[in-house]
């Protein structure tokens, strides 16, 4: 008796009891669709994080004052108490490190912006004219301030979309005057809208002014908390990181035993960390969904065991008219595999459907993963074999005489 025949026999046996087959499959359907939907959510989150990072630029490096980790105690980067990074350091990086193409300091402060009868508290960033190129962020209206504005510490300001909407609803912001700590600034440009960052913060609630202006006229101190550095290519980021570290250690006259008093991080590391986080999330979600798949599998075993008992007489008939034990075993094993594979297929359809519906329903990005689909198929087949084997063996071990006598 060949395999095709056994498959037909198994199919007929399942079709004879549609309701039970459907209920048994339900466990696998829920399990598989949950795995696919969960992995899709995880992958979607991961992909959106990656997209954000890509939009920032993967050849980006951060240089910040203060050590990230001193004596095992982590302190925030750009620590307000430290004053170890200067504009001269940044000039030196730009001048002496060959793998660096652009540098901008970022002098951050919070400021109250007043325009007419509107006011808004926002993050004011003092940067150089290269900032839009480094961050790959375009100006929507007007223009970014220039090299000359930076040199002369001009009172010019570029605002984010949120600010433009808040302070100048319905009118053009460019050319208007904003007062920052009672100093008038001329609005020269409005940045293109960027939306939320992966942490959900509004990236458009921001204003840019030349760092020289912020240092001298707003803060009254010439310190740099953080700088953005652009490497010549993504491959050059590690070289740039090393070269910047070497240069700054040399400039800060640090002995070999002393730790860095600054921190250089590259975006690739940040991206990897973010990926690591979303990967962990995905695995966690998949594991939870996997448990339901396991429960579905146990459901199959349960039904198959009941089925073997209930169909003892049928097994006896089949054996009496010439079915070998192996044919009976194969029949039950294939019934169980058919149950789990059919359940798996329906689960895939449901899971993919769910993954496509989630962005519309909940607004979460999803990404249907081929790996998750293939994995679910293999897993559901494995569930069928694993949980079907024991009942199948039990059926095959029956004695035809006893089985025929069974009531």
């Amino acid at each position, binding site marked *: *008796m*060949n395999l095709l*025949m056994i498959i*037909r*026999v198994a199919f*007929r046996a399942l079709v*004879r*009891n549609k309701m039970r087959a459907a209920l048994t499959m339900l466990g696998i359907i829920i399990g598989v669709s949950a795995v696919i939907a969960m992995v899709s959510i995880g992958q979607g989150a991961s992909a959106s994080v990656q997209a954000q990072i890509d939009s920032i630029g993967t050849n980006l490096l951060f240089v910040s004052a203060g050590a990230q980790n001193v004596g095992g105690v982590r302190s925030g980067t750009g620590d307000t108490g430290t004053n170890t990074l200067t504009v001269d350091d940044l000039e030196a990086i730009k001048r002496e490190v060959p793998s660096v193409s652009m540098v901008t300091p970022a002098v951050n402060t919070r400021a109250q912006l007043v325009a007419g009868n509107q006011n808004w508290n926002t993050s004011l960033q003092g940067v150089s004219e290269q900032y839009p190129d480094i961050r790959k962020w375009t100006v929507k209206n007007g223009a970014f301030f220039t090299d000359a504005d930076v040199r002369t510490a001009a009172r010019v300001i570029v605002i984010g979309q949120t600010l433009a909407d808040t302070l100048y609803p319905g009118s053009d912001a460019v050319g208007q005057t904003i007062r920052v700590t009672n100093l008038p600034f001329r609005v020269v440009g409005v940045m293109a809208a960027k939306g939320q960052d992966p942490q959900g913060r509004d990236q458009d609630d921001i204003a840019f002014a030349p760092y020289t202006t912020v240092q001298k006229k707003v803060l009254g101190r010439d310190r740099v908390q953080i700088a953005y550095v652009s490497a010549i290519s993504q491959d050059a980021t590690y070289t740039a990181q090393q070269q910047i570290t070497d240069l700054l250690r040399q400039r800060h006259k640090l002995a070999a035993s002393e730790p860095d008093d600054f921190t250089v991080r590259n975006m690739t590391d940040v991206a990897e960390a973010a990926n690591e986080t979303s990967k962990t999330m995905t695995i966690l979600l998949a594991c939870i969904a996997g448990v339901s798949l396991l429960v579905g599998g146990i459901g199959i075993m349960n039904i198959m065991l009941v089925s073997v008992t209930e169909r003892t*007489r*049928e097994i*006896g*008939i*089949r*054996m*009496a*008219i*010439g*079915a*070998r*034990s*192996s*044919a009976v075993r194969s029949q039950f094993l294939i019934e169980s595999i058919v149950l789990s594979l059919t359940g798996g297929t329906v689960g895939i359809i449901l899971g993919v459907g769910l993954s496509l519906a989630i962005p519309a329903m909940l607004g979460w990005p999803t990404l249907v993963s081929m790996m998750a689909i293939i994995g679910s198929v293999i897993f559901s087949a494995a569930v069928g074999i694993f949980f079907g084997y024991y009942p199948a063996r039990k059926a095959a071990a029956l004695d*035809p*005489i006893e089985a*025929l006598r069974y009531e």
Partner: protein
Amino acid sequence: MVAVAAAEGNPFYLWTKKMLRIEPQQLTVNPALLAEIPEARTVIQLDHIHKTYTMGDVEVHALRGVSLTIREGEFVAIMGASGSGKSTTMNIIGCLDRPTRGTYILDGEDVSQMSKDERADIRCKKIGFVFQGFNLLSRTSALENVELPMLYLGVDAAQRHQRAMEALAAVGLAGREQNHPNQLSGGQQQRVAVARSLVNHPALILADEPTGNLDSRTSVEVMEIFQRLNRERGITLVLVTHEPDIAQYADRVIVFKDGKIKSDYQVQDKRDAAEELKNMPAVDEDDEDEE
């Protein structure tokens, strides 16, 4: 012209009687038919079969040295009280069980020491079973039930269908192929079972109390089919029954008692089911069909 002596157990006697359906001493025998007699093959040969079951510490001797020979074309009824060993004998003849001692040659093959799988194959090819409880697969059409043994033999789909249709027609169930067992009467179900036992062209059909669950008229109908198959196709039939009047439809009766053969005789006034059916009051077929 050859005269044949009447003697119990004499194959010439048996065959002559079967061929001509009259007592041989009354007539001369057609030599053309007589020429076939030496070809009457032995289908079943049991030689000193013992079967012992161990139940806990107690040994139960179900069979204590049974020897018997059944030739091709014979219609044999096995009788005996419960516990006489007739069921054990049937299980051994049907290759469902193995003897503890002794040899069993079925259709030229020694099956007494065969493995479980080998016996399954023998059952598939050489034995057709008809049971008391019909033992059809429920929720499965008559046609599929009849096709089942061919499925295990590996007959291709077209031939399976054709042979199953023929077998169902042979037992008078043409047009009922798609009915499920619960849509058929007891007699019809048993006829499906008979069709199923036929399809692999077995050397032997083994019927275990085939009329046990049937009323008297339906019993006669089933016996009529058995007699017809035996007469027209020369199929060897072994029938296990405890009803003496059912045994009267066979050619030969073997009676078991205490694990041994008590008697083995030719039926003197064999009943003819077809004749009896003619004389029975007609039953409205539709009533039966609607069950």
